[in-house]
């Protein structure tokens, strides 16, 4: 491959014109912190909001709830939030993949409910090995997703309708599996124990959180420095060391404070560790592999992707399969919260919360723009609202209305920033 893509030099041996490394028309950031500030202002004006709205929203939400109830920012409540956001967050990760294609998967919640009952039926009724049952459950989700993807990609039914049919159908299948009993109690062992509320990273050892934080910070720092060195050698623009340090310090502050706060009571829930691991893996897949690049390409322009030799149907089917797989995984997380598979699993506002998390976090509904970290940021917002309202003993009716309003606000921000981006030539 490499020798096919080598670029032939021009025939005449005239040295290439001394092209400046950076075009003069490009706005170059000024040196130092003043430069950061001016670039930040320019990005805001251009509608490149990034994660800013969600971070502002999070600060506002935390301030309001802390004022209303001073237990909100306590360590125990933070452990609560970090534990409960993992399940819905897994659904959200799968949705980010689908949203990047510019499509939607309305079946994730009912697939997650079905997954819980499949797992319970396999282990409780058939006495299957725990881990084998986990694998089979996830495969069920993958197969269901691929099934949706097939109807969408090969038959041409809009994804919205296929997954809406799935939403109803898989809920029915779940009810059929649980017919008679109505619920199945899952034993607190194996993977389901690790996903439960009594399972913490390194058995609540104080070191656990700090080891994770150090790992994350070290990975970012080493990764950035290696990248910088390679870019410097290849004579392409690279991040200045000051910026790398700034980013590393920012991540270090956030992760060490999080570790400290969580350590003050119980420690890092294992469910959160799994969630973070899934985020890191998916981020790598989306940004650093050809498969991820193809997903973005299909989300950007189907025709361009097809002309570039990308198998669009295959990408669509696999993305829906990924979404189904994460839905099933999320279903296991949610089942681990109560150790039961019930008829209520995957009902209520779970679907809306999962979609809202992805969109609030900054993944566009219009396809081609976003990243998996929006599942984390969005879930922080959603779970904070949920936990905060629970803490204030708000009725579920109020919770529904507030979550609905937050979702609408997120979509408005997405649409408006898209319009601003287009008017400043960045759509």
């Amino acid at each position, binding site marked *: 491959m490499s020798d096919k893509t080598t670029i032939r030099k021009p025939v005449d041996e005239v040295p290439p014109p001394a092209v400046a490394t950076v075009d003069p028309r490009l706005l170059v950031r000024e040196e130092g912190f003043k430069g950061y500030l001016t670039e930040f202002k320019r990005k805001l004006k251009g509608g490149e909001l990034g994660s800013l709205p969600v971070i502002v929203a999070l600060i506002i939400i935390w301030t309001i709830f802390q004022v209303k109830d001073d237990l909100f920012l306590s360590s125990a409540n933070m452990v609560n939030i970090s534990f409960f956001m993992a399940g819905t967050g897994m659904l959200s990760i799968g949705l980010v993949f689908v949203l990047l294609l510019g499509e939607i998967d309305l079946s994730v919640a009912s697939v997650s409910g079905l997954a819980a009952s499949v797992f319970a039926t396999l282990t409780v009724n058939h006495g299957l090995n725990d881990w084998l049952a986990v694998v089979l459950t996830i495969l069920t989700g993958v197969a269901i997703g691929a099934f949706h993807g097939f109807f969408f990609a090969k038959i041409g039914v809009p994804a919205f309708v296929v997954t809406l049919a799935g939403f109803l159908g898989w809920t029915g299948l779940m009810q059929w599996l649980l017919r008679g009993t109505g619920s199945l109690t899952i034993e607190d062992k194996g993977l389901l124990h690790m996903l439960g509320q009594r399972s913490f990273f390194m058995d609540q050892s104080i070191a656990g959180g700090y080891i994770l934080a150090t790992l994350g910070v070290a990975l970012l720092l080493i990764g950035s420095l290696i990248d910088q060195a390679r*870019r410097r050698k290849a004579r392409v623009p690279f991040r200045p060391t000051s910026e790398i340090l700034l980013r590393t310090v920012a991540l270090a502050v956030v992760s060490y404070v999080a570790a400290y706060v969580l350590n003050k009571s119980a420690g890092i829930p294992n469910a959160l560790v799994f969630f973070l691991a899934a985020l890191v893996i998916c981020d790598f897949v989306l940004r650093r592999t050809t498969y991820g*690049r193809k997903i*973005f390409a299909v989300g950007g322009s189907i025709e361009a992707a097809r002309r570039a030799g990308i198998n669009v149907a295959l990408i669509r089917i696999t993305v829906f399969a990924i979404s189904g797989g994460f839905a099933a995984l999320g279903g296991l997380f949610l089942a681990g919260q109560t150790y039961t598979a019930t008829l209520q699993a995957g009902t209520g506002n779970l679907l809306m919360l999962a979609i809202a998390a992805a969109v609030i976090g900054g993944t566009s509904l219009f396809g081609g723009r976003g990243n998996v970290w929006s599942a984390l940021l969005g879930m922080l917002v959603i779970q904070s609202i949920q936990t905060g309202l629970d803490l204030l003993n708000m009725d579920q009716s109020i919770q529904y209305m507030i979550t609905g309003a937050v979702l609408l606000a997120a979509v408005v921000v997405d649409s408006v920033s898209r319009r601003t981006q287009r008017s400043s030539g960045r759509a």
Partner: protein
Amino acid sequence: MSATPVLALRGVSKRFGAVQALTDVDLEVHAGEVVALVGDNGAGKSTLVKTIAGVHPVDDGVIEWEGRPVHVNRPQDAQGLGIATVYQDLALCDNLDVVGNLYLGRELLRFGSLDEVAMEQRSRDLLNTLSIRIPSVRIPIASLSGGQRQVVAIARALIGDPKVVILDEPTAALGVEQTAQVLDLVERLRERRLGVILISHNMADVTAVADTVHVLRLGRNNGVFPVKGTTNEQIIAAITGATDNAVTRRLARNAEAAK
């Protein structure tokens, strides 16, 4: 100019149902030659290009590649030979940056993951040798002007190191300055000894960069003109079929009668 054409079509015909789109068409492209393909709407330009690009296999006739007859039945066949096509709708991904678009579908890998550094470096080298000026190779295509998108699309065709590049109406939607940029680029392709097939409606563009003009009319060859020593009127007459009028017919009849 080399004696053997890189690409030659001999007596190519193509039929769609009741429509004879191409009849007995010949075309030759040499390395380092810009061939303009002109003709009215429906003259068969697009069909001809699509037969070369492998979208429509030919019914009759031979396609020769460097003197050898070849079969071009699929787009992959054409790409494998070294024929790159830039269609009128550029088909770039707005959300990906220039590097991402240039290497879309043939990304460079390093330890199984994308080698962004190598791709960026080679993109810059390629754009520099073509003297393409864009603000940065790391901005999304959406931020580029129409002309810049066109040159990126052409540069993208060159990543696979082709020998013949087909440009379908590359200047159709461009302003004066941007058209000039694209025409400069076409000349640079010629300097790199590539064969270029340029489809255009704009006579000024054609006479500015082309070496040879092939005229198609109603799916048939209607004249091959070297650009030097041919007037625009002659070419336009061939396009519109003005050569086929009462005066010429009477001349032909008289000539026959004189025999």
